[in-house]
């Protein structure tokens, strides 16, 4: 695999700076009394032609910092008086809107996270690209059209002539992001701000977009400010790294320094708590370990894998699911989402289910839970076919097979207290003799997942994402399930929180001998959690093997492509060139 940048490390101090941010502070006015300091004293620079990465978890102020550069802050935000944003020698702070507008899209352009919502659905992508050409470069209609086709070709969308006439919804997610990039580079900007440009994309598409951005940057010699939460990407693409937390810069330096000799404990924690493809410790380190000052010593590796003697708790045979799609007034067409998937889940073990969006991995989980009606196949739970049971016959099995959903913000009823959320399943399944016993049980579960007892009377909106996911896990635990389906359960969480929840899931498995079906698009997380792994693509299981086996020697070409696309962070390949690391 080729490194994404040719000049890998910090030309930072020597090259002239195109952008200089100094003493930036941003304050949000919530209401008459409340003000929130979102960014405090942030200073960094971007050398022309280089890539600077702003890294941080949600709420770190990285996006707000970037938006302040282009003057796209919401109206209730104010800049601190010390703020200086120098671009090409000009201070952008206090620049009149008209001049900022002339700058935006021409000298500085932005690529946003969600290509679908950033493109206007009622205009063709050709029109949208041509708009900035005509606006900023004053091109005529014909010249703009020709240039647009060139640009669409340059960002690697096939058949550019026709694609210029396509509407956004006719393009795939990756192509939409390519179109956004074409718009951003249309006027040859000196600085490209990419705000989590690949977060919404699948890992193979992410790889293509990153390669495209790196290539364009070299060809056009533009500087790039890359905002991301993923240190894996940073290690591949950036030259200078700025690590932010809670609105402040924790550490900045060349990519080599950050990865090889991080000074700040927060940076070290961020680097350590992400699961890796090449290691599997007993426990993931968490941020508290580092901030407490006692960096955890190397932990023993956890052995994984199954043997033939392990008892099977759930056997799925030829599971099929197709969704009806209406055609015309009366016609119905069936679109297959899952095709002939078979596997065995063993007691106390984890089966990982990986695949990209649309691969049918979530549908498998929902169909097993009977939240979708299966179109065919069997799911034998201790010999009883769950898919053939009536709703009443299913009820005793409901408590034994449970699911934790992806979005912790959506999976808890906002109008229920945490107590009610935990008590409801126990009432339904007559667990516990009376209400007092149930309350005691619920309190126990809260404690077990690491939440304080007073959470009982609170509402979900008072908790953070990670805490909410703990509540969702506690809700499942009240029923003492045998099988827990984790449907992208940690995907929406920040890496530090993700590590905590993964550790919790691991502890619970050790304690209760739970069997997990762990569904995720994140190959590193799946490898960390799973004994066996199924790789899914277009509704089919293309490969099923022991976790170590599949990552060491993938057999199916799709699996190989998937594994090659995972950002690896800082690797030896890039370390060979560039300046020497700072002294230890």
């Amino acid at each position, binding site marked *: 695999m080729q490194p994404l940048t040719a000049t890998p490390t910090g030309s930072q101090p020597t090259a002239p700076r195109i952008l200089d941010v100094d003493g930036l502070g941003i304050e949000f006015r919530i*209401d008459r009394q409340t003000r929130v300091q979102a960014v405090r004293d942030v200073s960094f620079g971007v050398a022309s032609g280089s890539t600077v990465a702003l890294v941080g978890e949600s709420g770190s102020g990285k996006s707000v910092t970037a938006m302040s550069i282009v003057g796209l802050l919401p109206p209730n935000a104010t800049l601190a008086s010390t703020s200086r944003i120098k671009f090409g020698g000009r201070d952008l702070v206090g620049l009149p809107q008209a001049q900022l507008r002339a700058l935006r899209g021409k000298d500085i352009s932005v690529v946003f996270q969600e290509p679908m919502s950033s493109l206007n659905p009622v205009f063709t992508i050709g029109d949208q690209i041509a708009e900035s050409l005509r606006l900023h470069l004053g091109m005529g209609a014909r010249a703009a059209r020709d240039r647009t086709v060139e640009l669409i070709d340059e960002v690697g969308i096939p058949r550019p002539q026709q694609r210029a006439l396509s509407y956004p919804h006719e393009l795939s997610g990756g192509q939409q992001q390519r179109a956004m990039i074409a718009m951003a580079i249309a006027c040859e900007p000196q600085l490209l701000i990419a705000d989590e440009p690949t977060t919404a994309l699948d890992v193979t598409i992410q790889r293509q977009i990153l390669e495209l951005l790196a290539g364009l940057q070299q060809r056009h010699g533009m500087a790039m400010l890359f905002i991301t939460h993923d240190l894996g990407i940073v290690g591949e693409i950036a030259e200078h790294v700025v690590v932010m937390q809670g609105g402040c810069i924790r550490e900045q330096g060349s990519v080599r320094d950050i990865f090889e000799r991080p000074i700040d404990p927060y940076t070290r924690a961020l680097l350590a708590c992400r699961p890796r493809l090449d290691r599997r410790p007993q426990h993931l380190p968490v941020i508290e370990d580092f901030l407490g000052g006692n960096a955890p010593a190397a932990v023993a590796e956890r052995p994984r894998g199954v043997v033939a003697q392990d008892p099977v708790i759930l056997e799925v045979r030829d599971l099929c699911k197709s969704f009806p799609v209406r055609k015309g007034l009366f016609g119905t067409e069936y679109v297959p989402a899952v095709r002939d998937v078979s596997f065995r889940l063993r007691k106390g073990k984890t089966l990982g289910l990986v695949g990209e969006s649309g691969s049918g991995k979530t549908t498998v989980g*929902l169909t097993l*839970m009977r*939240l979708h009606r299966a179109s065919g196949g069997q799911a034998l739970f201790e010999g009883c076919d769950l898919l053939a049971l009536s709703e009443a016959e299913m*009820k005793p099995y*409901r*408590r034994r097979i*449970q*699911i934790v*959903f*992806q*979005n912790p*913000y*959506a*999976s*808890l*009823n*906002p*109008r229920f*207290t945490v*107590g009610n959320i935990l008590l*409801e*399943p126990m009432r*339904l*399944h007559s667990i516990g003799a009376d209400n007092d016993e149930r309350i*005691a049980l619920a*309190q126990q579960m809260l404690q077990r997942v690491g939440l304080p*007892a*007073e959470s*009982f*009377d*609170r*509402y*979900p*909106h*008072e908790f953070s994402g990670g805490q909410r996911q703990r509540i*969702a896990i506690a*809700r499942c635990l009240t*029923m003492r399930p045998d099988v827990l389906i984790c449907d992208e359960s940690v995907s929406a969480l920040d890496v530090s929180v993700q590590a905590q929840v993964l550790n919790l899931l691991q502890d619970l498995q050790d304690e209760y001998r739970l069997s997990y079906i762990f569904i995720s698009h994140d190959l590193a997380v799946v490898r960390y959690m799973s004994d066996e792994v199924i790789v899914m693509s277009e509704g089919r299981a293309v490969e099923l093997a022991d976790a170590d086996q599949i990552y060491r020697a993938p057999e199916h070409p799709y699996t190989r492509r998937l594994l090659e696309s995972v950002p690896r962070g800082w690797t030896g390949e890039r370390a060979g060139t560039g300046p020497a690391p700072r002294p230890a």
Partner: protein
Amino acid sequence: MTTGPQATPVGAASAATVAMVPPARRSPGLWALAWARLRRDRVAMLSLAIAALFIAVMLASRLGLVAANWDEEIAVSYASPAFLPDAENLEAARSAGIPRPDAGPPVDISDIDPLAPHYGEWAERSAALEQVEGSRRTTLPFGADKWGHDVLLKTIKGSEVSITVGLVAALLATLFGTLLGALAGYWGGRVDDVLEWFYNVFTSIPYILLILSFAAVLSQGLVTIILILGLTGWTGIYRLVRAEYVKHSAREYVRAAQAIGVTDLSRMFAHILPNASHVVLVQFSQHFVQFIKAEVILSFLGLGVPVTMVSWGTMLAEAQEELIIGKWWQLTAAGVSMAVLVTAISLLADAMRDALDPKIR
């Protein structure tokens, strides 16, 4: 002291249970938070106070505490408002100026007139009447109508019908719309198809025509007008509630409820309804306003409450003739009361929508 060591674990256990018991402080629910936000909105609080005042006065009138004697003819016809004591009142002057037949007819026909024996009695009576006429007031706080009713009391009494109609009809429409919307949105498929067809057919009939046909079939009265408005007004609520249910049925928390085995009915009304309740509440208050106006229009058209009752609508209908002769106070009293109440509730509904915004999660 053999009991000592045994007592200790019991004590420890009870201490543990005490620690387990959640503290008394209940954290604010979404409703409490919404109320706190609403409290901070001065316009909303003023609107709430005005609406509460109207409803309090209306209830007092219903209980007979105020305006019970609104139909007593206590003033001269079209008595002027107190703030315009010098307004010219030709009507009163004319009725006062009509000469009373104090004597018998000019030609004495008493020998052939069969009514002659009664004249004396009638003369006495009319003399008594004249005395009453004389004691009629020429000004009232907000003037009088054609028959000399106090417009202020009439407005208060009229609020009874208007607010009752608005409130009950809005309740009916909200109930109907929410129920159908919930069914359609939650079940989708066939149920949704059938209800959508029903909705489309229903809304394709011109609204006024629908109301007229209802009014023609049913007898005139308060219940009729409530039924008309309630049964024709559910469509907007139905659409919005249906959309909410479509959205929420696919949410993960509803899926999660299904996964733990919650029944459909409970998912519809225990899980989703509280999350859609802000829509229902805001729609209710908007329909309240709309139905107050609708009652006025229906009564104005003569399809509303019977003439024996008074409502803001009948008052406005009467004002039609009065305006020609320059008597504007009845129109103003009914119009301003309605406008103030309607504006207050509209503003309140607006503020409620902001306060209940579920986006805060």
